């Protein structure tokens, strides 16, 4: 069995008296696509934020490769290899599409103060390679011809795609995506998932919140169901559709 990558242990996050995340346990192993579903307001995005360090849990523990990340800053969690794509894209609107991609690239030699001034030859070489990588990813999501448009000029669906593409530039070990297929046409949405699956075969792990269940269930290997801040069911997609708790969470049926 593959090694545990992310362990969420009894995590609680409350805002005032409202428990957005209420004692969640998860165990995400290396490789594959892991799904997280649940009705709106069930705590999925809050859980993601605590994993990313954007919010700190009130109690419980989050461990990435055995290292406790509860109180780490987002950039430190990025350094460990956890990257995300925001649900509502948070691009850099007046930067070009290409610059949005390049800013995310991991391990850049030229993003330090002195290096940028004095090691120009070194980072320029590295950037040539990163640019080629960025162009390949942009080709796949059909944004290749928009590289010099600013991100603010893109349509909603294109922004969503760029958000995912940008996260891929960061070579994540674990990539968290919040509704990647929302707002993207079905054919392209499926293509994106196909690409994610290819990447997961090469060792990348994905943890994805998605309401488009038909796509998610086709590609995911394990599904967690959340409702009212708790995990109410988990299993592989074939089994989870038979779970009563899944139906109750989504449709409110007994």
């Amino acid at each position, binding site marked *: 069995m593959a090694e545990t990558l992310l362990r969420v242990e009894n995590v609680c996050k409350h805002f005032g008296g409202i428990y957005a995340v209420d004692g969640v346990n998860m165990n995400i192993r290396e490789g594959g696509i892991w799904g997280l579903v649940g009705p709106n307001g069930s705590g999925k995005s809050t859980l993601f934020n605590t994993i990313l360090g954007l919010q700190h849990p009130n109690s419980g523990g989050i461990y990435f490769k055995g290292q406790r990340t509860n109180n780490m800053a987002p950039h430190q969690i990025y350094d460990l290899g956890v990257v995300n794509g925001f649900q509502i894209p948070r691009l850099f609107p007046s930067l*070009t599409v290409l610059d949005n991609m390049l800013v995310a690239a991991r391990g850049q030699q030229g993003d330090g103060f002195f290096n*940028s001034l004095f090691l120009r030859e070194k980072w320029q070489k590295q950037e040539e390679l990163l640019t080629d990588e960025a162009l390949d990813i942009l080709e796949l999501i059909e944004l290749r011809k928009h590289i*010099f448009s600013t991100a603010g000029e893109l349509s909603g669906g294109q922004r969503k795609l760029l958000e995912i593409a940008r996260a891929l530039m960061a070579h994540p070990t674990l990539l968290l995506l919040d509704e990647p297929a929302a707002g993207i046409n079905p054919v392209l949405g499926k293509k994106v998932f196909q690409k994610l699956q290819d990447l997961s075969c090469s060792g990348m792990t994905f943890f994805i919140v998605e309401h488009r269940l038909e796509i998610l269930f086709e590609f995911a290997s394990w599904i967690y169901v959340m409702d009212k801040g708790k995990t109410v069911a988990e299993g592989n997609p074939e089994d989870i559709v038979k779970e009563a708790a899944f139906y109750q969470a989504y449709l409110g049926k007994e």
Partner: protein
Amino acid sequence: MDPSMYLLDLVVFIGIFGIMSLSLNLEFGFTGLANFGKVVFFLIGAYSYALLSQAGFPFYLCLIIGALIAAVFGFLISLPALRLRTDYLAIVILTSGEIIRLIVKTEDWIAGGDWGTSVAPAIALPGASAHAGILVNIGLVYVCLFICFTISRLLTNSPYGRVMRAIREDEVAAEALGKDRAKYKAQILMLGSAMAGLAGGLYVQYLHYVLPGMFLPIVTFTVWIMVLLGGPANCWGALLGAALVEVFDRGANLAKDLLTLPTDASNLQYILFGVLILLVLLYRPQGLLKESAVKTRATERVRSLGGAVRNKED
């Protein structure tokens, strides 16, 4: 006064405030740090220069140490910058600037208090004409300006410059992409403050005196007008803005002599500055020169190929 001296004096001022404008451009234009206390670092550089030169240090050490002390203050200012949003940070810096000015004003022992103190010129030429003196100053100021301009250009056209802009656009997203925003903000405030400190040193050695009245908050706002007018996030824009504002400033003073107005024309310039800034923000919010994209060898290569690739596809 000899009109050519007036012109040369203008050139010196454009150089000194060009450095100020470049430094605010790095902070605000590129990184989005609303530094409403530019004058503090100008003051610190100026007083450091004055005190060090009185203590007998050579002028270049006075300039360098002044810039370093200003950088230390820049670092201190960056500490609240980690916790505060842009608008609150602006208030903190603005008020701390006034506090420091009031300290040097009331503490006579520092540098003569309200009366100020005299400062020796950086490069004294005994027996030389006033012309020669001012030309030496132009040389000194523009060497410094060139260094600051080159640093600005290299820094902003690099992956580092990309991160600066990313922090300006969405600092949470930048942080989630692994950029330690605290570190970047501190570095930029230190660099910007060092440049402002350098400008302060150049300023007082040129004027031969330093007093608290030279460092009113209006200096900060003048530099802001330069950046907003010239074009934030464009290094040439910062210089253009500095030149225009200085020329405008001189023009208002000349107008005083040429026109008979019911009021003092040099006070009118503040009203005119206000109108100018409104017009710029309403009709040309990006400034006279647009933000320039990050230009690196790799992106320029793609840009040069861009046309061909597009033709093939279309």
